[in-house]
């Protein structure tokens, strides 16, 4: 029952007091914008509480994912759960986008 959100009191190393600020990258901003559209009052395809539930389902993997990758994984799982798209559609789209990016990188 103990998810990655509930580690309070477990043994851990020293707290790193150094701030590791990070300028958001373009893709991180894209993920943020995607979330805003999914959560907004008009569409309300999902709620932030549902996203949290999915992120916590990552279990031990929760800590391996950077922040926006967690959000992206959670929203993909939520859309699958709600039947907005299927796993096959998601994979086909990923293949298409990957192909397009590779073509752009190779200068075509």
């Amino acid at each position, binding site marked *: *029952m103990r998810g990655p959100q*509930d580690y*309070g*009191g477990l043994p851990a190393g020293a707290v790193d007091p150094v701030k590791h600020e990070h300028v958001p990258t373009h893709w991180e901003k894209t993920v943020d914008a995607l979330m805003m559209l999914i959560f907004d009052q008009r569409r309300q395809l999902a*709620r932030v509480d*549902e996203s*949290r*539930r999915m992120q916590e389902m990552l279990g031990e993997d929760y800590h391996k994912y950077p922040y926006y990758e967690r959000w992206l994984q959670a929203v993909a799982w939520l859309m699958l759960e*709600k039947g907005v798209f299927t796993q096959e559609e998601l994979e086909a789209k990923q293949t298409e986008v990957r192909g397009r990016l590779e073509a752009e990188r190779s200068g075509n």
Partner: protein
Amino acid sequence: METKYQPGDKVQILQRNQPGHVRTPIYVRGKVGVIERIVGAFPNPETLAYGHSGLPYKMLYRVNFKQGELWSDYDGSPDDTLEIEIYEHWMAPA
């Protein structure tokens, strides 16, 4: 919406092992604290997380705990406290 507790009331957090989207951390379960303030009524995150309405609203309180109550090996000042927000349905009078 009515509040069952008022600032200053002693409460015990329920020792309940519940699956799902629970927002009450394990480290405060079973512990006794004091209501510090009434935060207000909010939709219930335990049902919001599954796509439901979150209704009926649940009253949320800020609860103050002595650190020594939370951690048996706490070696800081006995006056040190921790405050955390807990929903009404997760507490009982103490």
